[in-house]
């Protein structure tokens, strides 16, 4: 049964963006991930890149090799076929030391959510949660959707530097900073795993579709 209605719009002459307006980001993302994988696997001539995101799919192509109409038709077919098809991904455990210096926002975030810090950690470690997309910075995973009990808006004032490996939540998602970066999310803890290594193959620890299980570990 197809229920998602995708709007496909040019992003310049060499890319098409499929977006869906829905509150069910899980279903939209599932279709976007499945369609991206199918398009990448079938590799039509002229296809340059697919970027699945939370509720969208960007497809970049060479318009001198393949026409817009052909790309759009393939996107529609792939999105329709992928809807309702379970996402396949690896299951990856991420050990996290929560609170203290590693997670300076744990107590305040828990308080705003009406939870104890221990309850917030337990919720965060409940999961597993899906890697919905990579973006913002090399190897940065957007993981979710989180249950409403963990929903917080971004911090009013972003930090200018968040240490690498920091695990954070905001806007119904959780993420892990791969490098020292500015960030506006609430910092819950930190992992020693390296999220991005340009010399590794693949360079990103996580891929869209992977299932992430956070595991609380005691401080080093």
């Amino acid at each position, binding site marked *: 049964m197809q229920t998602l209605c995708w*709007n496909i*719009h*040019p*992003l*310049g*002459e*060499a*890319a098409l*963006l499929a*977006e869906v307006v829905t509150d069910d*980001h899980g279903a939209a993302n599932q279709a976007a991930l499945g369609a991206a994988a199918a398009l990448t696997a079938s590799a039509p001539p002229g296809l*340059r*890149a*697919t*970027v*699945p*995101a*939370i*509720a*969208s*799919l*960007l497809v*970049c192509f060479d*318009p*001198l090799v393949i026409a*817009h109409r052909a790309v759009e038709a393939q996107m529609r077919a792939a999105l329709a076929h992928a809807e309702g098809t379970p996402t396949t991904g690896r299951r990856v455990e991420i050990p996290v030391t929560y609170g203290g210096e590693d997670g300076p926002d744990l107590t305040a975030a828990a308080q705003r959510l009406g939870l104890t810090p221990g309850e917030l950690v337990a919720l965060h470690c409940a999961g597993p949660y899906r890697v919905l*997309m*990579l*973006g*913002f*910075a*090399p*190897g*940065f995973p*957007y993981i979710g959707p989180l249950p409403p009990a963990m929903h917080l808006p971004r911090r009013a004032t972003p930090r200018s530097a968040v240490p690498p490996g920091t695990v954070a939540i905001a*806007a119904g998602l959780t993420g892990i900073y791969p*490098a020292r970066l500015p960030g506006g999310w609430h910092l819950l803890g930190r992992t020693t795993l390296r999220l*991005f290594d*340009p*010399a590794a193959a*693949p*360079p*990103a620890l996580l891929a*869209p579709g992977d299932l992430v299980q956070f595991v609380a570990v005691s401080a080093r």
Partner: protein
Amino acid sequence: MIEIIAAGPLLTVQDAGRPDARRYGVPPGGAMDTFALVAANRLVGNLPGAAVLEATAGGVVLHFSRATLVALTGANLGATLDGRPLAAWTAVRAAAGARLHLPGRRERWGARAYLAVAGGIAVPPILGSRSTSLSGGFGGLDGRCLRAGDRLPLGTPTYAATLAFGQHWPAQGRPPYQPCPILRLIPGPHLAWFAPERIAALAATTLRVGTTSNRMGYRLDGLALPYRRPCSLPSLGVIPGVIQVPPDGAPILLMADAQTTGGYPVVGVVIGADLPLAAQLLPGDELRFTFTTLDEALAARHAQAEALAQPLDRDEGDLLSSLAGA
């Protein structure tokens, strides 16, 4: 080997970037002015995407430790080779020990000059590219902008380089570089976020590149595009050329080092053929936008691909003077 004597504000190794690494969240990167990149490489017989030096605004002095063939394209930064004016858009011999100087802008337009050397800059490729990823801290030379004292290895020139000496790129076969360029836009997917008269104003206002602009993107001053009502958008994939509008209403034109995803509405996308013009803007420079159609964008892209594949003439005058003076 090339030694950097002075690097100016931003001198980096760049090539055609890493579009395939987009799926890992890695910005595509690469030369800002892709036309000047390909032209410079063709002039010295390199593959189109070989690694070159991208100089920004000037202040650059380089020293060649061995004789080689070079070509300088893009902005006119007043180049001299051993004190004599260097013929731009031409394959020129640089003698062992020669000094190349790029003091600064000499015309009313121009931000970035590209120096191709026969054989290319031979730093190790990372994720399929030798481009410097400044935000990622990898690629190029140690993932950073170049500075005085750096030494860059050169690759082995192709056979084509032996025939390239004196090749010249005709002025009529270049993008229409000019002050206050008019960049053509395809309307973006989120026009409904803005009042129609604001969208019309986008195509009728002279904008200025803001002071905080860099290789990731240009903040554009001169027009506010407020949302009709407060909204938020889940993060979506973006590409260089996208004009996104954060809640403060000040549009941002994404450039080569832009993040792979963004969370703001997209009001328009600069067509590929006009991105080289955008690449030649510095903070403070003016620009305009005009909306266009997919058909016109495709025709412009086709014309630019043909210009990049044009057969090259040998500039006999330059050839003779180079032979005489080398």
